[in-house]
Structures are given as C-alpha cells and as structure tokens.
C-alpha cells in the first residue's frame, strides 16, 4: 500500500513537472499482432532465433507517455541498454529540451545522476523508473528450462522468476516476443507488450512498447524514434 502511494506521488509529481494533466484512455496506439497458427512451429527454434536477433547493447531515442488514472505526461527518453551485463542509463528531457532526470543502474541498484532542480522527486522515484526499464529491456529471452505451452496461435514459455512466475508469449507471422507477463500466485502483476518490430543491422527493435502495471494501475507507452548504433 505504501509503495502504491509512492507510485502515485511519483507520477503526480511528473504530471506537475511536465505540466500535463488530462483525461486518460487506454487504447493501443500500435498495430495489433496478427495471430497465425503455430502448429508447425518448433518452440525451441523460436527461442533460439529470437535470441540471435535481439540486440544486447543499444542506444535508442524514444518518447514515453506515462498514464495514471486521469493523468498523463510525456517526455523524450534517451536510453542506453546493455542487456547482457544488465546495465542501463536513461536521460529524460521534456519536449523543450530541458533535462528532467538522469539515471544509471544495473539489475539490482540505481543511481540518480541528475534530477531537475525545483522538482521535489519522491524517495523511490529512481527505483520506480529503474524497475520499469528492467521489466521492458532485461530478461527478454525465456530460459532453456522454461516450460512450453503450445497454443493454437501462440507459444507460451513459463518459468519461475523472483517470487513469482514469468510468461513469455511468442506469436505473429514472425513468431516474435509479443508479451511478457509477471504473476504472483494467480494474480497478474504487470505485462509488457511489444509491437511492430523494426530491423536494423540484423537486430530487431520493437517500435512500440506498452507496460501495464495491473497492481498499481498505471501504463507506460514507449515509441521508438531512433536507434543509435
């Protein structure tokens, strides 16, 4: 409950900082996945194929919209990811080019390098952002030991993760990762959806990403603008 309040405080702070408050909606602004039959697909091959096309180190420019209930704010994000070493850096600017914050972290910790003066960021602000970056960009390939459930139009890999269970859903014409889901018990805690993969230098980058935190009822929409290789 305390964490929920902190999350609310965090995002209300952002709404205040960036000055965007409005009525929200939760439509998907990306092309929906065209599900096709996976009857002839070998799940292990799908996993290997996806792993080989996933970039391990990359820098991207994207826009990020955060939505919590009726509040929305947007920013431009510059993100540097090393998914193998589990390192990240992120700088967020407002649309006029003013730096809002800069964070650097790894799988376990995060350091706030800069936070816009005049904005009183709540104590867990850096942690909340870092958690979302890890959910989106880290651990995108299921373990070889993951249990496989082959359904009519999708393949689900299921494995234990932290104190819960992680599901990876592969689907579509190219059988790519379209969703990651994290459960605690029977309750779905959060989901990340990946849309419209784009290829650059033989690697695949999702043009659209949506993170839905079901427990805290917020949503992040990330639109890829540029890949810097």
């Amino acid at each position, binding site marked *: 409950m305390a964490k929920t309040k902190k999350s609310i405080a965090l995002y209300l702070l952002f709404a*205040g*900082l960036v*000055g*965007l*408050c*409005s*009525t929200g909606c939760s439509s998907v602004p990306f092309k929906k996945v065209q599900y096709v039959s996976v009857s002839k697909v070998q799940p292990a091959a799908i996993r290997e194929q996806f792993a080989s096309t996933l970039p391990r180190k990359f*820098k991207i*420019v994207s*826009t990020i*919209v955060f939505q919590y209930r009726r509040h*929305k*704010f*947007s920013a*431009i994000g*510059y993100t*540097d990811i090393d998914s193998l070493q589990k390192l990240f*850096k992120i*700088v967020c*600017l*407002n*649309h*006029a*080019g*003013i*730096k809002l914050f*800069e964070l*650097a972290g790894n799988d376990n910790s995060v350091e706030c*390098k*800069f936070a*816009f*003066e*005049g*904005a009183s960021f709540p104590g867990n602000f850096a942690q909340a952002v870092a958690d979302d970056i890890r959910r989106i960009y880290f651990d995108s390939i299921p373990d070889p030991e993951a249990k496989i459930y082959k359904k009519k139009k999708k393949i689900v890999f299921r494995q234990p993760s932290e104190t819960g269970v992680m599901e990876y859903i592969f689907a579509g014409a190219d059988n790519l990762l379209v969703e990651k889901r994290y459960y605690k018990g029977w309750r779905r805690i959060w989901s990340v959806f990946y849309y419209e993969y784009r290829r650059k230098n033989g690697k695949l980058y999702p043009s659209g990403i949506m993170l839905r935190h079901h427990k805290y009822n917020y949503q992040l*929409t990330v*639109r890829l*603008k*540029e890949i*810097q290789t």
Partner: protein
Amino acid sequence: MNKITIILIALCMSLVSLNAYTEQSVEDVLSRLEVKMSEIKTLQTDFVQEKKLAIFDREIILKGKIFLKKPDLFAWHTEEPTRYSMVIRDDIISQWDEDIDQVQKVSMKDNPAFQTVVGQMRKWLSGIYMPLLEEYNITVLGQNPVSLKFTPRENTMAYNIINYVRIVFREDERYIHEIYINEKTGDSTLLRFNDTMLNTPIDDAAWEVKPRG
C-alpha cells in the same frame, strides 16, 4: 628617471585604464543591448537545439519555432524529434504533444517546477541581462558580433549547475544568434536561431497549441 622606468609606468597606467575600460564596457554593452532589445515588439524565429549529453556519444537535435509578442505572449513549437507546442499567455501554459494529442492547461502559480523552467527560458531569451550581474560574472568575449560569457558567482543556485553560458548576438545586435550552456554534469546545449524576423505581424495560428499542419 630612465627610459625603461617611464615605459613601465606608462604601461602600468595603460593597463589600469584598460581594465577600467573593460569593466565599463560590460555595462555599456549590456545597456546598449537592452535598448535595442526593448525595441522588439514581436519575434518569430526558427531554432535548432543541439544537446550533448555526457553519457551519449551523439548530439540530440531538437528543431522548431519560437514566437514572442510583447507584453505577454510566448510560444515554443518543437517539430523534431517530436511535435510539441507550448503557449504561455499571462499565467497559463497550454501544451500539446503528438503522443498524448490533447490540449492541456496548467497555471504557473500552481506549479513551481514549471515556473523555474519557464523562468530560465525567459531569462536567456530576453536579452535583458543587466539584472544578471548579481548572479553572474559577465565578460565581453567579442564586439563584432557581440559575444558575452556568463560565469555563475559562488553561492548562487546556478553555480552548482552551470560552468558558463555564452551568448552571441546578431551583427545588428537586435537579437540573439546563439546561446551555449555548458553544465557541470558535462552536458551542453547550443540553441541557434535562424530566419529571425523582428517586429513583423505574427499569424494567430502561432498562439494555438493544436497541431500546426
């Protein structure tokens, strides 16, 4: 008194007078610029903002337009890498961006963080720099075109953030050509103004935050 002594005294005197002239000239330059800037009633200009972040190799480029109409209208429209509009009328800030696609309004009075952002933008874009003498050491780097360097004084808020700010004016000194901000974090921002038009009528669409075509 030998010749060398006379030359040394003359040299010392000229250095003293040169120093006095320099100090005088900073104030003179600021006053002269203020007079010229005060003649501006409307401004419309393209801008290119080049941001160098210490943690990234490549520069980040933002492009767009700025409009100003005295006494109380200001508009900032970013066109790249995303489309965004901000219009300030009195105390009210209206914003739109292509991702959220809704016009949103906020009062600056209720939003101190936004007040700081807008305050910083106005400070450097105004060209009225005499009041900044308390906060910054100002030096004249060049006269043709006029180029000023602002170094924050110790014990000011800016001292912890900024190494220096350099501003280059247009040759006619009627407006700024570029602003360069060098920050303590290793980041820097260069804001260049192109196709600047002064005291020409501004289309009403400039003050709208809805998509501009």
